[in-house]
């Protein structure tokens, strides 16, 4: 293998797309040892690979199992590279509080959105599943998030999404956060009706939506 950093970045990206967790870890260690810039290795290697995986998901060449293994590889690489980030690269990233609404434990959709958001440079605060509306508000305030992302697969929990927005209004915090909703039973019409800022039917669309809402270049 050539010692050019670009070759290493490409290899990292390929290892992520190739779902090869072990190889991604090894290449990340190699990057640390050879002293290449950790930030660039993450951006042009790991994140580039995850974005390619996201494109393959959008074109239905990859499905959820493949995307999960790609993300495992990405996170394995991040574990190695992140401690070596120079301070000026650890600037604040826009924060998204994300979770599955109370009464539902289906969290694959939420997890995919989280993975793709992180690959796009957002910091996510993942509350998990079966989360009461009040906690979304508390956590968003506590972490000074810009976006609250609500997911559900069950129609029974849709009211919980509306309640989050109600709680924000009551606390006069509605303007402070962008609220996005998604999941099987959700539609744009529902998002409009409860006064959400946006809806997406899938993970890649959710990332574009968040970028738009917080004004980050896509």
């Amino acid at each position, binding site marked *: 293998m050539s010692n050019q950093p670009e070759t290493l970045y490409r290899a990292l990206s390929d290892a992520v797309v190739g779902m090869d967790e072990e190889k991604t870890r090894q290449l990340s260690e190699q990057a640390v040892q050879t002293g290449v810039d950790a930030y660039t290795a993450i951006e042009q290697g790991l994140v580039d690979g995850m974005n390619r995986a996201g494109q393959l998901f959008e074109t239905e060449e990859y499905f959820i199992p493949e995307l999960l293994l790609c993300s495992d590889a990405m996170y394995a690489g991040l574990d190695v590279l992140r401690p070596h980030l120079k301070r000026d690269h650890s600037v604040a990233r826009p924060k998204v509080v994300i979770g599955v609404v109370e009464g539902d434990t289906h969290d*694959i959709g939420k997890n995919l959105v989280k993975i793709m958001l992180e690959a796009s440079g957002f910091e996510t605060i993942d509350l998990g599943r079966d989360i009461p509306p009040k906690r979304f508000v508390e956590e968003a305030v506590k972490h000074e998030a810009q976006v609250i992302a609500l997911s559900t697969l069950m129609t029974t929990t849709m009211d919980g999404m509306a309640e989050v927005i109600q709680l924000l209004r009551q606390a006069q915090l509605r303007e402070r956060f962008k609220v996005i909703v998604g999941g099987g039973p959700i539609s744009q019409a529902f998002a409009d009706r409860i006064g959400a800022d946006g809806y997406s039917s899938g993970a890649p669309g959710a990332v574009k939506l968040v970028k738009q809402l917080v004004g980050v270049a896509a």
Partner: protein
Amino acid sequence: MTPLERFAAYGKGQPIDRLPCVPIVGNTAARVLGVKVSAFRGNGRLIADAQIAAYRRFGYDVIRVFTDLYTQAEAMGAKVHYPDDETAYLAGPAIDSVARIARLKPADPWRDGNLPAHLDAMARVHQAVGQEVPVNGALTGPFTTASFLIGTENLARLMLKEPAAVHQLCELACLSALAYARAILSAGCTPSLTDAMCSTTVISPRQFREFGFPYLKRIIDFLHSQGRAATLHICGKTRPIWEAMADTGADCLSLDNAANLAEAKSKVGHRVRLMGNVPPSEIMLQGTPAQVREAVRACVRQAHDNPKGLIVASGCSLPVETPWKNIDAMLAAVREIGWPVDPPSLNQALN
């Protein structure tokens, strides 16, 4: 016509009064009887009373004894949470690692979990109204049950890393399903299959062929050997696997509202009856009766001439709180269209 008479005549190409219509009523039946959803747990008599009451209230064409997708997985050890008055959901899988697969056993439908209560419900419904309406027992597909046994994300990763373990889980789930199918038949009902996780919203068509298809086919072969027709429902996106779904031998495909019935008709309509696909959440739960009517007419426009026939249905089980007026509107729309279907009149607005 009774629903059974309607289906029999429709199948032979004889005159009928209207297309068969199935708003898929599960726990909504609790509302008709005025009981809490959680009261169904372990109570076959109550499930039966509610299903019979809902059928009599709305007059649809298939009764499906169904509360949630987890009954078989629960009978094999998965943990299910029962909210006071909403549909149950999976609290945790039966096992958390491949090493523990050896601990799992196929469920005994007469003994384990809530399966005996469901069989009791099916027998009671069959006894009460089985002479006039088809009574189905919900049967969860092996791949979906496998995902509840070890957790969906776990299973997704194992498909690529340890496919043999996934097959082991599917095999166990399939043995449970076959035993349950036999029991459902002995209760006088017909199993109707749902394999939610086989959707291409989740797995690839190739993964469906490998992990979903073989087990579905075994169950459907068994149903055919018992002289029963098989209905197969898969949620979410399914277009890339319609042919594979037909290859399972299923006689009827029940499609989610993510599917277009006209497209399904042209691809597999010469092989299978189509059932669908009024949106359960956006239209049936949140829409108006006028929107329900429009959605029914869209389904009928798309597939009334399906070579193997059409059942106007909701795209999935109805949400518990679906307004009754929307269920009534669905039946009314199908009656209004009548038979034979007159395509130009489908475009007319309501006066």
